[in-house]
């Protein structure tokens, strides 16, 4: 709630504020989906400011444990906007993207990604 996340796709939004984590009482983590409100957007984008969107957290500054016992953390908090079915709204994804998306079945985002960390 109230976390401002960067948007790393070309859907038009730039900054997005989390208003609800869809799963988990303690909040969303890396790989989870959130409901967010667009706070800052590019002038000619698919998504306008003030719109309520779904997003998948692709970068999180909080470390997340991996299956082999190690932990990963990223530089900042970022999200890729998706629709209700989980398909990304944008056509490109910038920056690194974690493995964890495969587990969550966000295959489309993985295919669009430049680098899988």
């Amino acid at each position: 709630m109230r976390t401002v996340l960067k948007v790393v796709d070309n859907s038009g939004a730039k900054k997005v504020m989390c208003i609800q984590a869809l799963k988990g009482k303690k909040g969303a983590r890396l790989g989870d989906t959130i409901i967010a409100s667009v706070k800052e957007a590019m002038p000619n984008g698919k998504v306008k400011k003030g719109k309520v969107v779904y997003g998948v957290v692709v970068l999180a500054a909080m470390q997340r444990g991996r299956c082999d016992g190690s932990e990963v953390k990223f530089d900042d908090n970022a999200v890729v906007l998706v629709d209700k079915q989980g398909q990304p709204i944008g056509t490109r994804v910038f920056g690194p993207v974690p493995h964890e998306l495969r587990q969550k079945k966000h295959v489309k985002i993985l295919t669009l990604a430049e680098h899988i960390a």
Partner: protein
Amino acid sequence: MISDIVNVIFYLGNCVLLVNLRRMRLEKCWFCSSTVYPGHGIQFVRNDAKIFRFCRSKCHKNFKMKRNPRKVKWTKAYRRLHGKDMTHDSTFEFERKRNRPERYDRNLAENTLKAIKKIDKIRSDRASDHIKNRLKTGKVQRQKEARKQLEQGIHLVKAPHALAQDSSLCLPKIKVNVSQAQTEENQPMEE
């Protein structure tokens, strides 16, 4: 980047098992260059997709402080840079990163395991020799200095009177050959 999840299909009789196998790799800590075993450490992914692996929080905290490992004395990077540790050796070639997975062959695996042990021993022996050679000159120097100090400062240890009385406390006298010309000169004076 090769995904480290390999889906292996086992055929068991007439049914098919789909198993997720994760590849295991021993990484190097970015800061101190020690090996990071699976289950240890933190992996930090920067926005430019560069991955920094740390073996423990000490290294991670130093990284966050923006310290340069080449300037931090206890890291391998510093030691190699300043010639404290061995840098060029043929045994390092065996440890180079290979991205192609090898097909499993029992003999190959067996031989590799045996070789790893042997190469490790050779490498550590060579490394310790390198350090020994480096410290050798210092040891010789220190012994020389100690002997000189003892000769000059024996009076600090024992009083001159005690030294004169008990000759065993003295350092062994060094015989010096006096030339014949000198003794002839002295004789006219005594007469």
